């Protein structure tokens, strides 16, 4: 269906109310917004109206549940923040995303099954209420990730033994990792995950394994061109890798 320019303009209200269904029409309007300053300014103004509508919906009789605050605040220290956007990346390499021979492209349903077990371990291993809350918060985030229709399952062998399994939601820039069969480490050493791209950033420590499997770890802010790395580090982790990665799994984002 072809839309006239005039019709595009008149979608600004529906757009501000999130009332255009995802698809070609919304994409077209979003593109239009980037070229039409007056439309963008109109949508911004409507944003104030919808904010007022949102505030008007806050009702003392339906206050946010009491436990929510603790759960959110418990998850915050374990949630990696996105890097700020620094202009538009024009030099990003063109990537062939479906050409990695050892990557099985499986459905989200299979990925769900693979990670669900690990998620359960995370909860089962929680001893204190704070740990349990945190595990639940992480599970909520992982559930969202697993529900992504285009989530992809990647697996790769780890040097010296074991396998890493990754569920990647490229459009959300998030992934969840579990491992099985990694060699046990002497005390004083931990496995640490990394996002390795233009910069190397920690994606968290692997929790202790149970029955050879580590609970799922969620990493956010995956950037184009990143690979998932795994190294052995001193207890507590390092700011940058200090040993040679035993896994470097390219992430098709």
């Amino acid at each position: 269906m072809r839309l006239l320019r005039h019709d595009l303009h008149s979608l600004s209200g529906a757009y501000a109310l999130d009332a255009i269904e995802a698809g070609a029409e919304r994409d077209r309007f979003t593109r239009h917004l980037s070229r039409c300053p007056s439309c963008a300014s109109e949508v911004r103004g409507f944003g104030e109206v919808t904010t007022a509508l949102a505030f008007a919906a806050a009702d003392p009789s339906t206050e946010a549940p009491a436990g929510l605050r603790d759960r959110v605040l418990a998850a915050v220290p374990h949630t990696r923040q996105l890097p700020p956007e620094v202009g538009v990346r024009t030099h990003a390499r063109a990537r062939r995303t479906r050409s990695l021979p050892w990557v099985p492209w499986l459905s989200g349903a299979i990925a769900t099954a693979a990670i669900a077990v690990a998620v359960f371990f995370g909860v089962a291993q929680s001893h204190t209420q704070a740990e349990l809350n945190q595990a639940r918060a992480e599970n909520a985030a992982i559930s969202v990730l697993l529900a992504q229709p285009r989530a992809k399952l990647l697996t790769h062998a780890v040097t010296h033994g074991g396998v890493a399994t990754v569920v990647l939601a490229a459009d959300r820039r998030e992934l969840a990792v579990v491992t099985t069969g990694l060699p046990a480490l002497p005390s004083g050493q931990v496995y640490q995950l990394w996002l390795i791209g233009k910069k190397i950033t920690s994606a968290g420590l692997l929790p202790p394994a149970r029955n050879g499997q580590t609970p799922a770890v969620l990493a956010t802010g995956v950037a184009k061109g990143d690979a998932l790395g795994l190294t052995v580090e001193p207890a507590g982790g390092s700011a940058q890798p200090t040993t040679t990665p035993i896994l470097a799994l390219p992430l098709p984002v």
Partner: protein
Amino acid sequence: MNPNDSDASRFTSGTADRRGERDLDNLLVHVARGDQEAFEAVYDRLVGPVYGVIRRVLRDPSQSEEVTQEVLLEVWRSAPRFDPAMGGAATWVMTIAHRRAIDRVRSATAAADREHKVADVHTPHDEVAEAVEASLDRERVRRCLDGLTEVQRESITLAYYGGHSYRQVAELLTVTLGAIKTRIRDGLIRMRDCLGVS
């Protein structure tokens, strides 16, 4: 619209919150640098309306709680991408909240519930009126909604609070697609002017 006039707080409670909104922008800038205390303050300020709007759209308390949690963690995660030039912090957060609620409504798993919700939201205006009590802001929003034509008011509330797409709203109100787009836009322009003037 005056582009400098983008202070959403004037809807929250008058002049004191004008300063409040700037605080909120400022807090979010600190959140972007990983300041967890600043995040706590943002949480306390915005959890009410975040949960309120999600609950309004989704109805179901446990789903609403889940989505509220996602949204607040998203605020933490995405704070480095918040751009004050694009609008105030409250607007940024409420946009995330509403979008997530709508995503949930439109996701395949909610398909069945949605059938019921169509029936549920037939008196959106009364509902808005009901929710509007003590607060002056709500009073103002209600007054401004009252100033719209019936179709404008219904199409805005069905879309925003009911979580319907404009195509579904057109269906519900038996109005053409072209007309519904125009009603929504005209209604929002009137709301904007009404809220801005007072």
